Each structure stands twice: as structure tokens, then as C-alpha cells.
């Protein structure tokens, strides 16, 4: 029933806020094809939206003449998402992703924001900035979502924990 070999969907969107929605819908279609459950698909949609928003805002200075490239690779066992931006803002992607200090924000001791990468990390199995393997100048952000929950995530629990338990009927 599953297709043999991987399937690749490539997407090039203008670096303009709002266009991340195209990646959001595209990944939903691919994830549905991989039989991910509906809640896991919502997780993946949110993760890709945040990553594309960052690529637009920080990776290309929201200059609509720039492009963000999204590569979705659907394998039997996982969905691989690569997001490339031109990296023109000079902003270096952060090495770690901190837990957002909402108390600090509410008490106006911290700047509002800094939640995107944290949310991404909570929703997908792997998330990291990688070294481009060619001469690309820009940043590459990679996310992986496995179709079969790993042992670690397999611990019995109820409720939607975002751990992928409800995902897939693998």
C-alpha cells in the first residue's frame, strides 16, 4: 500500500510573511499521505509554520524578492523537512533552544517572543540548524518526524502530549 522509495516535494515561496501557509498546507497533504494522525499533522503544520516564519523574518530580512525553499521528503519511516533561507540578515541561528520565560515576559522583564524554536522542538522528533553541504550562504533548518514512535515516546500516557503517540497507524 505504501509507495516504494521516497517522495520529494519542493517548494519555493517568496520571503514574505503569510506565504508560510503554503508550506503549512503542503506538509499536511504529505503527512496525511504518510498516515500520520490528525493531531500529529497539526503539530507538523505548526512546526513548519514557525520554521518558515523564522526563515522569512531572520533569514531573508522579510525581503519579498528573496526566496525560502522547503523540501519535504516522505519516506516509509519518516517525514524529513528542510527549510533553506538566504541568510542575508546576518543573524546567526541560535545553538540552543530555551524554554520561554513567560513569567518574565508578563512582568515585562523579558522581550515578548522567543517561543518559535521551543514550540518546534516540542512538536517534532528532531530539529536543528545544519551546515549547508554545498556553497550555500544561507541557513538550513531540518526537522524530522518519525512514523513509528520511538521507544522513548512510547511510554504509556494519556492526553495529547504532542509526543506523536496519536500519530500514524504505522
Amino acid at each position: 500500500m505504501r509507495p516504494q522509495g521516497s517522495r520529494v516535494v519542493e517548494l519555493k515561496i517568496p520571503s514574505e510573511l503569510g506565504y508560510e501557509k503554503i508550506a503549512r498546507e503542503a506538509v499536511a497533504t504529505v503527512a496525511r499521505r504518510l498516515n500520520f494522525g490528525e493531531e500529529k499533522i497539526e503539530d507538523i503544520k505548526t512546526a513548519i509554520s514557525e520554521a518558515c516564519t523564522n526563515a522569512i523574518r531572520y533569514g531573508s530580512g522579510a525581503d519579498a524578492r528573496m526566496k525560502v525553499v522547503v523540501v519535504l521528503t516522505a519516506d516509509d519511516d519518516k517525514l524529513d523537512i528542510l527549510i533553506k533561507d538566504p541568510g542575508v540578515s546576518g543573524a546567526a541561528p541560535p545553538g540552543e533552544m530555551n524554554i520561554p520565560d513567560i513569567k518574565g515576559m508578563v512582568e515585562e522583564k523579558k522581550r515578548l517572543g522567543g517561543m518559535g524554536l521551543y514550540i518546534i522542538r516540542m512538536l517534532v522528533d528532531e530539529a536543528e540548524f545544519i551546515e549547508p553541504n554545498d556553497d550555500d550562504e544561507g541557513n538550513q533548518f531540518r526537522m524530522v518526524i518519525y512514523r513509528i514512535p520511538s521507544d522513548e515516546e512510547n511510554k504509556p500516557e494519556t492526553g495529547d502530549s504532542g509526543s506523536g503517540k496519536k500519530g500514524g497507524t504505522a
Partner: protein
Amino acid sequence: MSDEIQVSIRTLGGVATVIDLVGDVTTFAEEAINQAYQGVSSDGAVNIIFNFRENDYINSAGIAILIGVVTEARKREQKLLMTGLSAHFQKIFRMVGLTQYADLYPSVDDAINALKNGKGS
């Protein structure tokens, strides 16, 4: 962008003021949400319900706007309630800790009942 947010306000019989949000809750929603909140605040609203439309697109920039509202609401000793969120976004709101400052209810009716049953401020 498209799916521009539509914000409307209604008061529910002295119990609460509802801010209905229909459309994308992203950075483009900032002005509309803040204006609505400032408006109901200066009208003296104490219990404020943000009523989302299930399955609308909310991102972290949208959540940041809501944290800004929480900041103001604390100063004014208002009570914030949020309704209509999908299971997915309830999870996200919990994840970032927003639920420490605003109670989530499935529907506006549920929120009103909770307020009437003395959980209100």
C-alpha cells in the same frame, strides 16, 4: 495577508465581555487585537473572554500578542478566559505557559458558567 482577522466585541449580560476572533492570529492581527482589548478595557470590562474560531491559524507571533494582553490585564486586575481553541492550540498554549494567566474553556457558554459559579474574579 489573506484570512485577515475579524475582531468583534459583545457583552454578555454584565458577566463578561467577549472578543471574538475569526481568522489568522499572527503578527498581522496585532493592531486589531490590541485595539479591541484597549476598547473593552476603557469601557471597564473585568472578565474578558477571547473566543477563537477552531482551526484558525495561530502562530508564536500571535501568542506573543496575547502575552502582551495578559501583561496589561494583570495591571488592571482583569480576568482573562480563552475559548474555542482546538485541542492542538490548547496544547500549545499550555506548552508556553499561557494557561497560568488565562483559563481555557471549550466554549463561551462554559466560560460564562465558570464565572457564574464563582470562579470569576
